[in-house]
């Protein structure tokens, strides 16, 4: 280094000793020598062998690695990050009720936590091992030695680098020789190899190019434009079709949406049978009887539709006994949605209007036509839609079938002992219900 400082234009043929390399014949010899080098107080040195030598790290005085601690910390971080991520996204930022399940529940979140523990741990183990071993290392003074190639077949080496505070070309070489090594000096060019000027320029250029896209995005976001934006796929953005409420010059009224031709009606849209389609007779009174045949198949259809569309709120049995409703305990409710919603309402999370008990007199005393209207349009109390209309989901015939089943619920829930055939009565049916 001193030589280098004294020359302003160093000669490329000049060299310096960057390391002393000692070769040993056996793994045992290497281990014994490593202990001596360690005891001599050298710090910047290493041993090289064709295979892992048991106990070499002790012989070299290498302290145990802290990598396990890093990996443990990373694993713990992974678990915490995963739990926080799932809690934040599912329970706080975008709560979404899925079949009544809680928003945040530990068992469901364990697989993601497990994966993140592994991901964080593995990346830390990989990256940590590289960093702690100071890898990747592109050059080492021992590469200057031809003999060093034997480190991959039958050579056992110790290299002491010139950067070591105790390093002295002659003394170090003599020391290695004294412990039984075949010594070689590793010479590298004295001048630090210059980096070709193109490389920093190329890096700067690429970095500048990489800045362009984010700059463009920032510019577009911050500025207001009068012209339409650029459409890379023109025929996808502008398709030859008319959208709702748009113009069409072909017609006199210039409306793209065409009203039905006066005096016509779509197929199946006539619906003259007001009893069937509206639940009302020609004078507008609710019909009292079902406009569909009362048969077992209709009853079964009604039960099936009821269990699909009505039971989630009203319960399979049609609701609680009179008086039991609304006593504050959600578990006394029937119907999955009712249970969950009243649970949440209890903790101050939203409000919940409990559904009517379908076997109550209030419901059962209504004419069939009125029930039909309720299913069709829902229930709206002073502007609060407490029950949605089901006209879209349930066909007209099915609505009537459900009403038939509703009557069966009312009959069975309000049954007296006399309703049970004489032959099937037991002590249990002595009561009122």
């Amino acid at each position, binding site marked *: 280094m001193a030589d280098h400082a004294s020359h302003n234009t160093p000669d490329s043929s000049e060299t310096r000793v960057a390391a002393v390399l000692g070769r040993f014949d056996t793994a045992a010899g290497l281990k014994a020598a490593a202990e001596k080098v360690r005891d001599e107080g050298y710090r910047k040195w290493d041993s090289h062998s064709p295979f*892992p030598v*048991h*106990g070499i790290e002790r012989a070299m005085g290498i302290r145990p690695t802290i990598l*396990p601690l890093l990996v*443990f910390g990373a694993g713990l971080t992974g678990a915490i990050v995963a739990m926080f991520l799932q809690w934040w996204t599912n329970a706080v930022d975008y709560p979404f009720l899925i079949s009544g399940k809680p928003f945040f529940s530990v*068992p*469901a979140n364990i*697989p993601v936590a497990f994966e993140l523990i592994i991901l964080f741990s593995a990346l830390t183990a990989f990256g940590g091992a590289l960093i702690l071993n100071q890898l990747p290392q592109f050059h080492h003074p021992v590469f200057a030695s031809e003999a060093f190639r034997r480190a991959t077949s039958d050579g056992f080496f110790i290299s002491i680098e010139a950067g070591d505070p105790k390093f002295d070309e002659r003394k170090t070489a003599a020391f290695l020789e004294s412990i039984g090594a075949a010594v070689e000096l590793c010479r590298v060019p004295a001048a630090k190899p210059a980096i070709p000027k193109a490389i920093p320029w190329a890096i700067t250029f690429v970095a500048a190019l990489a800045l362009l896209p984010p700059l463009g995005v920032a510019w577009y976001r911050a500025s207001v434009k009068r012209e339409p934006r650029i459409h890379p796929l023109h025929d996808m953005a502008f398709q030859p079709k008319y959208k709702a409420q748009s113009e069409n010059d072909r017609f006199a009224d210039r409306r793209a949406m065409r009203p039905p031709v006066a005096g016509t009606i779509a197929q199946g849209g006539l619906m003259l049978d007001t009893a069937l389609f509206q639940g009302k007779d020609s004078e507008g009174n609710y019909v009292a009887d079902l406009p569909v045949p009362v048969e077992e198949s209709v009853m079964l259809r009604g039960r099936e539709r009821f269990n699909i569309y009505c039971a989630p709120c009203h319960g399979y049995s049609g609701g609680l006994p009179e008086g039991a409703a609304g006593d504050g305990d959600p578990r006394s409710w029937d119907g999955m949605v009712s249970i969950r919603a009243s649970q949440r309402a209890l903790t101050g999370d939203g409000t919940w209007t409990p559904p009517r008990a379908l076997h109550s007199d209030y419901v059962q005393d209504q004419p069939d036509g009125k029930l039909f209207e309720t299913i069709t349009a829902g229930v709206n109390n002073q502007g609060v839609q407490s029950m949605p209309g089901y006209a879209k989901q349930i066909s007209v015939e099915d609505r009537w079938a459900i009403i038939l089943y509703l009557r069966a619920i009312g009959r069975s829930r309000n049954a007296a002992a006399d309703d049970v055939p004489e032959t099937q009565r037991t002590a249990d049916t002595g009561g009122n219900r």
Partner: protein
Amino acid sequence: MHEIASLDRSRRTDSLGELAPRAAKTAWIVGGAGLALAVLSAVFFDDGWRHFNYSYLVNYAFYLSISLGALSFVALQHATRAGWSVTFRRLNEILAANMPLMAILFIPLALSLFLPAAAPYVWANPDLAEHSPLVQHKQPFLNVPFFLLRSAIYLGLWIWMARFFFTRSIRQDVSGDPELTVQMERFSGPIILLFALTTTFASFDWLMSVEPEWFSSIYGVYYYGGATVGGLAAAILAAMAAQRAGYAAQSITTEHYHDMGKLLFAFVVFWGYIAFSQYMLIWYANIPEETTWYLDRQSSAWLPASIALLLGHLFIPFLGMISREVKRRKVLLGFWCVWLLAFHWLDMFYLVMPSFASDRFPLGLIDLGLLVGLGGLYVGGLLRTAANVALVPTKDPRLPEALAFENL
């Protein structure tokens, strides 16, 4: 390195010798006392014989799992041609060779099938089965003759596997013939396959059928995970006991304990992984016929046991055994082995006993008596097997590799 090896080979008498019969006698006396306590309790307590039968199944499954864990360990070492584990292999071979005793101990379970009112296998009771369409549906598989036939097949195959490894290994102690090692390696693959099938179906038959309407296809793997934890912990403790008594002192080193500790640690996590896999699918699907099993175990009486398993069989040993130093110190490693054996026993209790009493935690004198009783017989059987064989396979071709083995 080679000096140590030859030194060990010169100690050809590294077997328990005279010590074994004396110790075995003590074990049998203790075991007899435990069994007597259990029988007396069964006579005097209400519902005592039913409790006895359920508890017998718990303890049988516990000791069987140790032998099964050891058997799978031996087969695995041959399949992977492992060098490091040679010093530990004989102890595992001895543990596995206890299988004939386990076959004898199965007889009370088989007999209990003919006492339908007190048997843990309610499907064998025609009156009960009549009321369950599911059990009726399973009748072609779950019936007494076929059950006994299958049990005989499992036990027969396990006895054969254990004898296969044990006899060849001790023959090698005399001849030093490397061909025996080659033979064991060649058979180890098919044996692992057979082992997996028999263990899975045995756990279905003997443990899962206690609740005949419930089913879980991962149950066999769950039992295997627990069994390996039990087997490894027992082998480590056996090595420590032998070394305390002055045997195999130079052959089993800190390095071997360290590696056994690593395997044990891995299987603690494996058990947790499988247990959670079973739990989460059932919890998420929320199908009544599957959730009943966990509902019983999360009732107020059993919830503490479930949580104790989660903590004591997974989280606490995970944190306790994660450090390298713990696995290299005999006292600490030994502590965790005892701990894990205790929780493995609780795991077996947790698998079976809620079917006996879901409304209370029925731990009693009968369980204690049977734990000690079967334990005494089991240890006695081990000592009898171990009496005249070296505790380390002295002429195994990979023994020098094992003796020179070091963890980096």
